[in-house]
């Protein structure tokens, strides 16, 4: 028992319980998803009994696989389209907005910044219902369906690029821009040739973040969808998860996960390329994660 007392009385004893909580947490948070991915490769119809490895639910099965079930691959394609279109609109809009309100002082930009932060923390459900009411009770050029979904997603995601770019602007400071102007550049030229390249990694990080968040979105896309042909993967999972689905649903979810991972990997490779001449940048995955 002596060693136990000594161990207990050691003032610099590492708190081991923290390590065990962390390990258990990681198992709890990731194992269920890994099991779900595993069963997407099941050869049988069960999602709980392993019956051998196959790609049956991806493309093998003539009727029920993701590739051959029209509703499933429509959902996947629609999700990716929403992801790309929303990112292409939200990131430039957010970057310009961030630059503008960062340098323009007054009540209007301060109020706009405040509104943007509110849109960041508002429960998504409230925004989704409000947008649905707007579209159903006011005549707008938007139709429930793809266009409404894109508009809703951009509104909800706009704050990510703004917050990330503003944080980056704060660390860059104004010296580089002022140096460029002193050397004869116009304000616009200084933004285009000095500021925007320096903001490259931040814009990239926000694009990856927005894309990954959009393809995982559920609340807004469900309320603003125009029918079964504009229902993305998350809605498809919600509609069929409790109605005796086949492992094809797991396969669909797995494909969505791979799209997210692909976006992160491509983003990381572009990050490496963007910072290739910059000796001060952290080139590891940690540097990229730091931008996120």
């Amino acid at each position, binding site marked *: 028992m002596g060693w136990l007392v000594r161990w207990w009385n050691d003032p610099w004893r590492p708190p081991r319980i923290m390590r065990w909580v962390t390990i258990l947490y990681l198992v709890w*948070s990731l194992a269920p998803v890994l099991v779900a991915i595993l069963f997407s490769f099941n050869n049988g119809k069960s999602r709980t009994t392993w019956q051998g490895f196959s790609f049956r639910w991806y493309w093998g099965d003539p009727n029920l696989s993701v590739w051959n079930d029209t509703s499933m691959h429509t959902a996947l394609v629609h999700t990716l389209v929403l992801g790309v279109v929303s990112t292409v609109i939200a990131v430039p809009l957010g970057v310009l907005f961030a630059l503008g309100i960062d340098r323009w002082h007054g009540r209007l930009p301060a109020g706009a910044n405040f509104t943007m932060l509110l849109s960041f923390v508002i429960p998504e459900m409230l925004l989704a219902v409000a947008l649905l009411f707007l579209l159903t009770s006011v005549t707008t050029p938007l139709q429930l369906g793809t266009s409404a979904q894109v508009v809703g997603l951009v509104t909800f995601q706009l704050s990510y690029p703004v917050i990330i770019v503003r944080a980056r602007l704060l660390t860059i400071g104004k010296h580089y821009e002022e140096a460029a102007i002193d050397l004869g550049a116009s304000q616009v030229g200084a933004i285009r040739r000095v500021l925007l390249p320096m903001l490259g990694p931040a814009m990239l990080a926000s694009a990856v973040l927005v894309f990954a968040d959009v393809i995982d979105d559920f609340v807004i896309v469900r309320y603003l969808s125009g029918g079964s042909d504009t229902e993305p993967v998350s809605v498809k999972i919600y509609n069929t998860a409790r109605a005796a689905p086949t492992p094809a649903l797991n396969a669909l979810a797995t494909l969505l996960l791979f799209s997210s991972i692909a976006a992160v990997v491509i983003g990381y490779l572009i990050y490496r390329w963007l910072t290739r001449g910059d000796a001060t940048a952290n080139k590891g995955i940690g540097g990229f994660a730091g931008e996120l």
Partner: protein
Amino acid sequence: MLKKAGRKSRGRRSLLWPALAIPGIVWLALLFILPMYVVLAIVFGQQDPIFRNAIPVWNPLQWNSAQFQYVFSNIFGANAIYGPAILRTIVFVLIASCLCLIVAYPVAYFTARLAGRWKGVLLIMLIAPFWISYMMRMLAWVNLLQNDGLINKGLSLGGLFNVQVDWLDGMPLTVILGLVYGYVPYMILPLFAGLDRIPQSSLEAARDLGAGRFSAFVRVTWRLSQPAVIASVLITCLPMLGDYYTNDMLSAQPSTSMVGNLINNTVLTPGQTGQAGAFVVLVLAAALLPMLWYVRSTRDEGARS
């Protein structure tokens, strides 16, 4: 316009910055502020007597509060059909947030201060749930918790006992744990950022001055991490207030429904649109103070750094 702004760039009244910000401002005004007004116009508006669809009333002077009174009487009144769900929302969100904090704090603490060379790998694994769709994470639990799922199989120890727990049939425990599972990643990262910023030296100073491990934690680490704790609790509570899908996926019974389910069940029903709007206003009113608190705390953060 840009050219003109460029020439005047050094003047204090440059038009360039407003020109850059205007598209975003217009977007937010039309698609964030205006929709909120539409909700009010519908809640305080009228109803078509035949088709039972809501008719928004745009002039605030003509608003009537019949919808609101109806919803309120059903929350607090004698036949309070909505009361239990509201109460349940508060209880579920409170319990789930406490559980989240109990799980998240040690994990964030370990990653920030004790992980050593594993820090990078750990961070990636902590960020991983962000890249996995919420619906997929819930689907994973639906698979595990089915009657013939792996959890029941595990509990019966390979057929030794006959365990038939209906996990997915209106069990509050499942829903609360589902909420914890869904939202805890969003809590760990802000906590990690807060704990990572506490200098090791201040903790060492406390210990050198005679504080035990427990009092050093309570009086230094916990105290210094307070803003991060509050921010992370808010950022997990707010989306939980509008959550209905966790409930639908893991329970699908009215016995566990929350205010999010009330909104979802009424929003697409003709004749109940106004009620859905009233619930939205109610949740917004409850969420407004935490939202403002969070916005203020992040703004102070920006001013400090």
